[in-house]
Structures are given as structure tokens and as C-alpha cells.
């Protein structure tokens, strides 16, 4: 009996050491298990990560998950979603419960370094704003001194809010909530004068209000919130796959490739497009990433180009009707810019 236990302990120790020696390689793990486990917004944030009554997920972040699955497997349905709250999201990624986090998460230095994540691509450039009831007659965030402000706890939003009021020598009463829907309900019930979160979120929440037209989003944007997918640190292969999946969507928009014309475009004479779509004879672009040759084609077929995804989820094709703004292509004055795919 005792021998067996000793053997078991030693065995476990050896296994542990073995595991430690192995290099983190999420791409191989994902290929082995046959799907991507993607952490998304669990509080039904329309436009980014939301589930309909039949249980289907949609949103800009969800499209990125699908794009990664399409790139790896050629099948956008090979994704499993883990709905996460602001509080769950980082432990979920740290513990390996999810492979990637696409949950409108702000890229910041401390998250990149201290929390042990890696960010690279930004799939939505956002900034924090304020929403107020029109009847208050407030026209600027600088008039909010002394106001009660609803905010979700444990977010960069909460920190920016404190910093902004401090910097402008104003005071405020924070009304802090664990979950976004609680904050929505409290704002709606008049518990606070203003609601603050990422501007994109404000538009989404405004839609949920009884009368969206009674509320307005103030012009000030008080922070930079580059939202992008995060993966665990020291796993550059996987980081490459996730980031280039996003860049492929942007590049597709630059090239004018969309879901309808992607097959025709394969015959294009443009060498950039041919290379992008894996039609170049001896191209190793896909293989070097650890992906099939036609990875970009699969992404475009699955979710379309970035512009399509944007318009479908948050832009004019959606109830949110958010302008492209910072998220327009760099050629059109925005910040969305794909590094050259070659």
C-alpha cells in the first residue's frame, strides 16, 4: 500500500516536471482538441458578444473567434464560447480554461505585463464616455461635478473615472455594480445621474432603455480603450494566429474582398491579392503560421471582411448604428491598419 502511494507521488512529481518542461503551445492543443475555446462577454453586450434566445452567439468579438476557428480548421463553427464577467475573464485565461479572450478587453501595460497576457491586434478602438438623461440639461462631462455615476466594478473604466475627476478637480459619487445589467437597471431607475463605460457600450446600453431618445452620450471621450483579443504570454505562435486572423479581415477590406466575391478574387491578377488568398504557387505564408494554405479565404468566407463585420454587428446594419470613426481603414482616416501580408 505504502509503496503504491510513494510510487504514485513520484509518478505525479515526474509528470509535473514533464509538464513544466513543455513549451506552451496553444495552437497544437487547439488542433488536438478540435475547437477553439473563446471567452466572450457574458452579459449580452449587443454588438460585441451576445446570445440570442436560440443560443446563437453574435458580435464583433464573436466574429473574431469564428475567424480564428475558420483559419485553423476551415470551419467557423468549431468554436466553444465561455461567457465571462469582467471578474472571471482574467483567471479564466490564466488558468487555461479558455484559449483566447475576445471580450471587449482593453489593452493596457499592466495587463500585457503583470497579468501575463499578450495583446497585439486591436479589433475595436474605443474610448470611455458618459451617458446622461437629456432632461438633466448637461452638455459636457465637465459639468458633472457632484454627480452620482454608475460604473461597473473591476474595469479600467472605474479607474479612468477616478482619474478624470481628480485631474479636473471635480468630485463625484461612484455607484458601483458587479454586473453590467445591475448598473443598467440602477441608471434606468434614476439611482445615478450618469452612466460611464466604453462609448460603444453606451450605445448598446442606450438601446436597452425604455426610451433611447431620452438619453444622450456626452461628447467627451476621457480615455483610450483599444479593445482586442488577449492570449497567454510566451505563446507567440498562437498570438500570431489570433492577431493575423484579425489583420486578414482588415486586409480583405483593403483589397475589397468580401464573402460574395472571394472565389472570383482568387483569379485576380494582383499579386498581393493572390498571395493573400494563398493562390501564389509556392507560398508558405499559411504553413509558416501553422495554418492551411487557404486560411485567409476561409476567414473571409466565414465572417466577411472587417468592414462587413463592423457594419453587421455595430454599424449601420445593426441597431447600434455606430459610425466607423477611429475604426475606419487607415486609408479613410481611421486607425485600422493591417501590416503587409507577405
Amino acid at each position, binding site marked *: 500500500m505504502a509503496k503504491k502511494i510513494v510510487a504514485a507521488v513520484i509518478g505525479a512529481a515526474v509528470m509535473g516536471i514533464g509538464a513544466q518542461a513543455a513549451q506552451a503551445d496553444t495552437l497544437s492543443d487547439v488542433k488536438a482538441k478540435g475547437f477553439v475555446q473563446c471567452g466572450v462577454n457574458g452579459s449580452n453586450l449587443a454588438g460585441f458578444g451576445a446570445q440570442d434566445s436560440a443560443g446563437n452567439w453574435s458580435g464583433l468579438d464573436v466574429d473574431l473567434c469564428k475567424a480564428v476557428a475558420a483559419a485553423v480548421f476551415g470551419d467557423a463553427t468549431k468554436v466553444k464560447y465561455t461567457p465571462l464577467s469582467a471578474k472571471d475573464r482574467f483567471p479564466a485565461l*490564466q488558468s487555461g480554461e479558455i484559449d483566447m479572450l475576445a471580450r471587449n478587453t482593453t489593452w493596457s501595460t499592466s495587463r500585457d505585463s503583470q497579468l501575463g497576457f499578450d495583446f497585439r491586434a486591436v479589433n475595436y478602438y474605443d474610448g470611455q464616455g458618459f451617458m446622461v438623461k437629456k432632461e438633466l440639461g448637461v452638455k459636457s462631462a465637465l459639468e458633472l461635478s457632484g454627480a452620482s455615476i454608475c460604473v461597473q466594478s473591476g474595469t479600467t473604466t472605474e479607474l479612468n473615472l477616478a482619474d478624470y475627476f481628480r485631474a479636473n478637480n471635480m468630485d463625484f*459619487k461612484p455607484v458601483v455594480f458587479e454586473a453590467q445589467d445591475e448598473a443598467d437597471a440602477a441608471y434606468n431607475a434614476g439611482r445615478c445621474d450618469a452612466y460611464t463605460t466604453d462609448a460603444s457600450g453606451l450605445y448598446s446600453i442606450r438601446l436597452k432603455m425604455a426610451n433611447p431618445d431620452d438619453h444622450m452620450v456626452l461628447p467627451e471621450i476621457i480615455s483610450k480603450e483599444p479593445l482586442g483579443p488577449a492570449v497567454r504570454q510566451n505563446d507567440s505562435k498562437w498570438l500570431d494566429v489570433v492577431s493575423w486572423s484579425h489583420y486578414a479581415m482588415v486586409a480583405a477590406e483593403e483589397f475589397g474582398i468580401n464573402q460574395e466575391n472571394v472565389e472570383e478574387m482568387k483569379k485576380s491578377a494582383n499579386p498581393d491579392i493572390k498571395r493573400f488568398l494563398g493562390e501564389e504557387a509556392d507560398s508558405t505564408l499559411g504553413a509558416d503560421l501553422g495554418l492551411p494554405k487557404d486560411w485567409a479565404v476561409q476567414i473571409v468566407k466565414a465572417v466577411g471582411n472587417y468592414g462587413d463585420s463592423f457594419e453587421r454587428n455595430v454599424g449601420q446594419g445593426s441597431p447600434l448604428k455606430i459610425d466607423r470613426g477611429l475604426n475606419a481603414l487607415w486609408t479613410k482616416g481611421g486607425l485600422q491598419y493591417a501590416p503587409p501580408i507577405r
Partner: protein
Amino acid sequence: MAIADARTGSGDPPKVSLLYNPALRSYVYQIVTIVVIAWVIWYAWHNASQNLARANMTAGFGFLNSRAGFDVAQSLIAYSSDSTYFRALQVGLINTLVVSAAGIVTATIVGLLVGIGRLSQNWLIARLCTVYVEIFRNIPPLLVIFFWYLGVLALLPSIRTIFQHLEENPDAVFFISNRGIYMPAPVFGEGFGYVLTAFAIGIVAAIAFAIWANARQRATGKRPPVLMVSLGLIVLMPVVVFLFAGMPLSLDYAIPGSFNMRGGMSIGPEFLALFLALSLYTASFIAEIVRAGIRGVAKGQTEASYALGLRPGQTTRLVVLPQALRIIIPPLTSQYLNLIKNSSLAVAVGYADLVAVGGTILNQAGKAIEIIAIWMLVYVSISLVTSLFMNWFNAKMALVER
């Protein structure tokens, strides 16, 4: 024959296989326990360190000294976003203690009244108390908190309505809105220290008088009027001093600010919802305990006391309650502990208790293990201290058997 066989076989003690040796078995079981526990701890520790290393994170409590960066709505000690995480946790702990203490006092009073009410001869009162107990005992406390917060307090007049009300009645000083209750705050002027001193002296003197009164009662059989004298010492004396010191107290009224009331004292709806829910929920359990305690005192005790010539009030105070308390205190302790633990539901309405603040830090600093360890340590300590106090009180109340 069989007996004879047994006799011939006797002489040596029966040979028992080592497998059935109780002492050895006990050792084996315990070694297995140790090995299993050690393995579980090692396994968890090993994986955690590996997971943390993989994510390039460090464990440790050093982060407590970093700047918190977030604001806390309800704080009784000086706190700003420049304070440290440690300070934020202190704020949370104090808030936990405040709401628990307030809840315990209210729950005890309400529970006592309802418990006695259920035993009342008055049919209507007894039924009403039963309905109260049966409703609150069978509904989750979290739901009661939401009920107060979303269902009742949120429907109170908005702050704009209060502003209008104030324009029409400029003399109003007390307001109830969906942002909380506003009332004037006392401002202590110079010389208020004398009043406090008088109050402290009054309490000490009252205790001394009670001790003297007890001794005198034992010696002469006459009981001096303890209650009246104590009231005089504790209440009247400070009032007199207050008047002589020139009434060094003014009131700071709440006045309309740009968005909220400014000045005065306010109690937020988050605190109110939590406080009301905890008190009323726990009171329903305390009522049952009180009822069982009073019914546990044999009727003969009351009758014997009447036979001795004690009046009903004296009977309750001197005969029934001391005996009932012995039955009541142990379960009462666990109800107090439950209330303290349930105060962690604050997180649901955003009252900044230990769990809510810790949750924010957990997320801002990403220190899950440390924060959860702090939570457990604090709650276990609070539970231990409360248990120790109640055990002491119980021992003091226990029947001294001769």
C-alpha cells in the same frame, strides 16, 4: 463437547491477523489521510505555481501597498483613489462590521418582539407574527435584498422631486429619495467634550450604583431604584452639562447641490437595502429561537414564581428570561454568525463591504489567491471572535450547579 474443545484450545491469546489489529488499522488510516491531504495540497500548489509561472505572474501580498486607483462610495475612514489596496480593504472591513452590527441589533429587537408576539394570547397578533416568520424564513435573503433595492427603494421620489419639494417647503430637513435618506448632521462645537465626559462618568457611576444596589439587596432585602438612578446618571447628567456648556452643538442641513444633496448626513439605498434585508430575514429566525426558548421554560417555574408573590413583570425578568436565555444563546450565536456571513451579499447591490472591495481588487490587481485567502482569514476570525464572546456570555448565563 464444544465447551471442552474451547477449553483445550485456550491458553494462548487468540491469534488475530495483523489485518484486524485496531491500532495498526488506525495508523494506516491516518497515514493514508496525511498522504491524501498532502498530495491534494501539493497538487494544487504545484499547479497554481505552474499556472502563475506560465502567465508570468507572481504570488504574494506586496501588491497591498500599491495605489488602489478606484473610488469607494461608502467610506467611514479617510479614503481616496490615491490610497492603497490595503486601505481599501480596511474600508471594506469596517463597512462589513457596521452593517453587521446594525443588523444584529435590529434583528435581535425585532426577533424578540415577534417571538414573544407569536406566544401572545392575542389571536391577531400571534397570527400576524406567524405570517411574518413564515414569509421571511422561506425566501432567500438575496431576493429580499433585491426586493428592497429594486422593488421598494428605487421607486421612492427622485432627487429632482426632492429639489422641487424643497423649493415649496424650504423648512424641510428630512428627505427620503431613491438616492437615500438625508438628514441634518450634528456639528460638535467647542465644549462638547465636557458632555462626552459627563456621559462616560454617568455610565461608570451607574455601573457602580448597580453593584452597590445588588450588595444592598443581598444584605437588607430591599432593592434601591436602579433603573431610575441609572437613567438619571446616564441621560440627565450629560443633558444638564450640555445646557450649562452653552449648547455646543449645531446642525448641518442637507441642501440641494447640482446633482445631489450637499452636506448633512445621508444613508445610501445600498446600505438600507442590505440592512433591512439582513435584519428582517434574521429576525424571523431569532423569533423562532426566542419562542422555543420561552416555551422551553417549564410552566411550573412561572407558577412557583407567582406563588412566591412575584408580579408578572418580575416573573418574566427574574425567572423566565434567565432560564430561557440558556436555551436561546447557542442557536442565537449561529444566527449572528449567519448574519455576518450574509452581509457579504452586499456585493449584489454594490455596498462596499469586504467582499465587494476585495472583488474589485481581485480584478484590478489580478490576485485571486491572495484576495480569497484574505476573505477567508477575516471571516473565520470574525466568526471565532463572535463564537468566543457568545460562549463566554453563555458560560456566564449557564446554570451554576451545586
